[in-house]
Every structure is written in C-alpha cells, then in structure tokens.
C-alpha cells in the first residue's frame, strides 16, 4: 500500500468523475422535469390559481371598504357599543351620495343585508334622499329612517367593513361574528350548514357501504371465473362506467318515478296500490340509489384488480389443512382483499362527497348535498364569499381523504378500466 492519499478518479477532461456524474445526473433530472413543466404550468395557471383565488374570497371581501371608504375609516376606531358620533353619520351620508351616483348602492346594501336582514331597503331608500340631507346628519338621517339610530345597523356596517374577515367561515360553520369580533352560534333556525355537511358525509358514507356490499360479490365472481366469461361480464360493469352520468340519472328517473317502470311493476304484482305508489325519487332514497349505481364501478374495478392478484392456491392450501369454506374465505382470502376495499371505499367516498348533478336532479329537498348549496350561492344568491368558505371546508375534507388514499393505496396505483 502506498502512503499517499487516494487521488480522486478523473474523467478524460481532468475533472473528478464524481463531479461529472453529479452534473450528468442533474442534467437528467432537469430533462425529466422539463418534460413535466408545461403541464405543471398549465395546471398552475388554469386550475390551481383560479381555485386559490376563488377560495381566498372566503376570508377577503373588500366591497364595503372600497365602496364606502369614509364610513370604513370612521368606523375603524369605533368600539361597537358606544353611540355613533356625528362624524360617523356625516361620513355615511357622504358615502351614500357617492354610491348612489356610482350605482353601486345595491351591492353595498346586499353586503350589509348579509349581516343584518332588512338592511337592504334601509340603505337603498335612504341613499335616494341622501343628497338632499343637511347637517346635523345624525338627526336628518334618523328623520328619514328611524332605524339609523339603531346601534345594530352600525354593528352590521362595522362587520361588513372588515376587508379580511372570518365572518364567512363562521357562517359556513353556523356561527357568526359580532361587532366586537367575538364568535357566537347562529340562532337555532339559521343553523343549516353543519347539518348539511353532516348529511353530505352521511349520504357519502351510505353510498360507500352500499357500493362495497354490492361490489364485493361481483368483483369476487369476476376474479374467480375463467377469463373468457369474466371479460364478458366485465362489460356489464364497464358499460355503465362509460355511460354518461346524465343518461343514468335520466334512466333512474324513468325507473323510479311514481308513474315509472318499477312502480308499474309493483302495482301489477299487487305490492302497492295504484293510488299509493312508492315515492322513490326526488328524495334522499333517489339520491342514494342513483349515486350507488353511478359509483359502483369505482368500487368494483379496484377490488377486481386486487382479487385478481390473489393466488387461488392460498385458499386451496387452507382447505387442504382442514379449513372450512367459510374459514378459508374469512381468514385467508378476505384479509388479502383489504387493500382493494380501502382503495375502492376511499375513492367512492371522495367522489361521492363532491357530488352535484345527481342530487340536483333526483335529490328533492332532503337529498341535496353541500355541492348543491355551493352552486346555489354561486349562481342564485350570488354570495360568492360564502360559497368560497363552504368550498374551502369541503375541499379540506377531500384533500385529507386524498392524502389518506395516497398513504394507503398510493396514487400511482390508481387504475381505470
């Protein structure tokens, strides 16, 4: 052995081989990343940032602050309980005149109305006369509408003037924020969202259980039959999977409605009287049946691919050692299908929880889910901030489940068809 320190192995151009290798590896990493980057940029621009931007509306609302700058400034230091001052009334009248001129008073009135119902007409009608009011503004404004002396109105304006607010999240969880910033429960009859979230979870859970109960036997049958037969039967699973959700929902309406195919059959066989047909649709039952049908393939396909990979010799070995059919199935076969159950169940649950179309069409009143409500606030009541807050809660639940799915199943194990 020589006593000199081992010199690094050099590449042909004299640089250490290790450095060259590191550089080459870096280049290859970069190459791979460059292939993915166009799609990443595309998704960032057209998927992630739109959603992020929209969800930010759940806690960011600058409508009142931009449209009513003077009132917002005047309310900044107000503690929410003392009598409003003349300066505050003056600022309010000035803003009312301005917004009336800019024709934005409607938006402002709607905004305050969310904090205090009945405020809309108060604002619009007062704004119409605001230009003619004279100092002292406190007295003249109260003369127009007595309600302006009410401290409640000022508290509502204070709440609306916050640009960054937890108010919508509080509302999404059936709470509300008071003028002093504290958060209390909504009055009993306005607590609807938590109930709706729970119903959404309940429907999704029920659909998952039904899918598992129906999916497990047929996945087992498909996995154990000879290939030729099982490929044929597989069509019965794949055809619904490939058929439009609207087609299937329409079909269920034809099947389940009171003058529909099933009820006709029931009447024909005397199960139901003609005047007392079952109401199986436009309620929760309709949602459950149609959703189970639509999501069943999502359960069967992962179960099937797991069961297909279980060597039949295991069960045979168990039986040869004296196990009964039941023991062999329950102790040897079933435990090996657990990954498939996990994959299918989480997938079905994730898809079910965000469901919109089917509940909207066949859900009636008590079959509606949280997505229907988000849509309602987006398109009908135009309360985008509340829609965003509700959406954030829903997305949070879904992302947690997605993370669990990745941990248990692994995203790269997701298969289609």
């Amino acid at each position: 052995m020589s006593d000199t320190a081992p010199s690094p192995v050099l590449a042909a151009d004299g640089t250490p081989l290790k450095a060259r290798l590191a550089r080459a590896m870096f280049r290859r990493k970069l190459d791979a990343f460059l292939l993915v980057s166009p799609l990443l940029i595309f998704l960032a621009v057209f998927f992630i940032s739109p959603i992020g931007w929209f969800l930010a509306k759940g806690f960011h609302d600058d409508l009142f602050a931009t449209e009513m700058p003077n009132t917002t400034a005047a309310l900044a230091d107000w503690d929410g309980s003392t009598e409003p001052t003349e300066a505050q009334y003056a600022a309010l009248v000035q803003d009312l005149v301005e917004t009336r001129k800019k024709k934005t008073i409607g938006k402002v009135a709607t905004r305050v109305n969310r904090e205090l119902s009945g405020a809309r007409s108060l604002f619009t009608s007062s704004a119409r006369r605001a230009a003619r009011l004279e100092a002292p503004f406190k007295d003249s404004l109260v003369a127009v509408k007595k309600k302006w002396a009410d401290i409640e109105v000022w508290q509502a304006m204070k709440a609306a003037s916050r640009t960054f607010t937890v108010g919508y999240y509080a509302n999404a969880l059936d709470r509300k924020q008071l003028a002093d910033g504290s958060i209390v429960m909504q009055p009993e009859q306005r607590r609807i969202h938590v109930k709706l979230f729970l119903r959404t979870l309940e429907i999704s859970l029920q659909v998952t259980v039904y899918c598992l109960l129906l999916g497990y036997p047929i996945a087992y049958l498909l996995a154990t039959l000879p290939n030729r037969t099982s490929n044929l039967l597989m069509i019965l699973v794949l055809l619904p999977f490939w058929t439009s959700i609207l087609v299937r929902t329409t079909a269920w309406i034809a099947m389940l409605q009171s003058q529909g195919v099933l009820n006709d059959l029931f009447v024909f066989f005397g199960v139901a009287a003609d005047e007392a047909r079952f109401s199986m649709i436009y309620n929760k039952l309709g949602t459950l049946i149609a959703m189970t049908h639509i999501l069943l393939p999502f359960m069967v396909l992962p179960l099937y691919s797991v069961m297909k990979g279980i060597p039949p010799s295991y069960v045979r070995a168990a039986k040869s050692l004296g196990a009964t059919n039941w023991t062999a199935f329950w102790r040897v076969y079933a435990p090996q299908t657990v990954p498939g159950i996990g994959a299918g169940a989480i997938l079905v649950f994730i898809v079910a929880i965000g469901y919109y179309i089917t509940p909207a069409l066949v859900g009636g009143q008590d079959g509606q889910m949280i997505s229907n409500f988000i849509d309602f606030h987006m398109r009908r009541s135009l309360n985008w901030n509340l829609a965003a807050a509700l959406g954030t809660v829903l997305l949070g639940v879904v992302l947690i489940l997605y993370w669990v799915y990745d941990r248990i199943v692994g995203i790269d194990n997701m298969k289609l068809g």
Partner: protein
Amino acid sequence: MSGLPPYAGLGERIWYYTFRVICGLIFLFLITPILIVMPLSFNVEPYFSFTPGMLSLNPEAFSTRWYLDILQNGMANPDATEGWWADAWANSQWVRSMKNSFYIGTLSTLISTALGTLAAVGLSRSEMPFKNGIMALLISPMIVPLVITAAGAFYAFSQFNLAYTYTGLILAHAVLGIPFVIITVTATLVGFDQSLVRAAQSMGANPVTTFFKVQMPLILPGVISGALFAFITSFDEVVVVIQMAAAEQRTIPRQMFSGIREQISPTILAVATVLVIISVALLATLELLRRRSERLRGLSAS
C-alpha cells in the same frame, strides 16, 4: 357447466347457486337502467313508462317521433320542406349542442393529451425529482369536487373575459381530462423498456426522433385510451358548462340537464339512447386497443 367439484355437499351447492343469483341481481341492477331507456325512447306517448300498447308489442305504440324531435327541437321552421336539413343543422338545439360537444371535446382532448403524454414520459423517468408530489398534483383535478373547480374557473376566467367563451370551456375541460391521460399513459409506460431509448440514442438518434420513432409507437395505445378518457370526460361534463357556458355554447349534457329539470320529454330518452350507442362504440375501441397492446407486449397467448 358448473364450477363445483363433484364432491361438493348440499350446503355448498345451495350456497354456490345462491351466490350466483345474488351476483346476477347485482348485474341486473347495473345494466337495467341503461337498457330500459332504449325501448322507452320509442314510446309514442310522451311518458317515461311502458304503455299497455308497448307491453303487448302493438306496433302503433312505438314511434321514432322523439328521434325526429332531436332534429326539430328549436328549429326556426320545422315544417319547411325545402332546406330542412340545413335548418336542422343550423337551428336545432340538440344538433347545435352535439356540434359544441364535439368541438369542445376534441380541442380540450388535444390539449390534455399533448401536455399529459409529455408529462407522463417525464414522470416515468427514474431520475424524476418529487415524483409522488407531482403525481398527486396532476391527478388532483379528478379529486377536487367539480363544483369547486367550476366555481374557481368561472371566477378567475371572468376576470379575463374567458367566461362564456369557447376558449374558457376548452381550457377548463382540458384541465379535467389531464388526470385520465396521466393515469393511462403512465400505466402503459410501466411496461416500457427504457433500454430501447438508450439503444436509439446510442445509434445517434436525437431525443425528438427517439420519442416519435421509438417511444411513441409503443405507447400509442395508452395515449389513445387516455385521449378517449379525456374526450368522454369533456363529453359528459356538465357542472363547468352550467357555470361557464352561455346559451350558444350549450353542450349535450347541459341541454339534457335543463331538459330533465324543465320539460321532461322522451326526447331526453332518445338522446340518452344515442349517447349509450356512442359509449358502446368508445368502449369497443378501448377494448380492441387493450387487446392489441397486450398482444404486442406478449402478455396474451393469442
């Protein structure tokens, strides 16, 4: 032919047949709704149920009037004898939705397939950094509730005048198709032999040539399946369209959605039947592709 061993006991026999009956019922549950729309769409009456005439197979109880209605619904002058087809092509609501569906579906499929295939090739390289995280991100459009995706797209796109435009719809649908392309193409690439790429490169092919001459032909079945998935996703999508489409951009699902809600007529069933036939055609194409790629990879004996 029974799969039972000859020594099976009575209990086993009973369970064997009970199990098959249960499975048969579940398959019936899966397939009946799809089969039921077909005969119902030939109903002469404007009902969603079988009339006594239909049950007794009376030919007068059947008609193709609802299929004709697909062509006539919303036409400017449905009674015109001259230029009838021209009128249907330009003015029938359903024909217009069909055109929109194909137009939006095709363009969004092109975008998601091109970007998705490229990304899947990158993801399948062993030296790809942050593989799992990026994969999770690329699949997420399938996981995020559609209402949220639609609301986000509508809110952001309307700031740039992209809401109520074809461009906006195509982009949003391309996003939704991407996970399907990624999943299918990545699955095909798992069996892909990377040494083929190295062989091509060692013989002097540049990366672009290698991709198009060596890699692409082998993964093509996967790419086509992915594209079909992406297309059907767009073709079946309604939540984004409800949020973002103006009347002139209505697609078939959108037209069906309002049809089911507002004036429920068997025209919907006729459209449904046409859609089922389209999905059967797509399914058959996919199955052929799958068999072909299995044969090419030597996975099946035939």
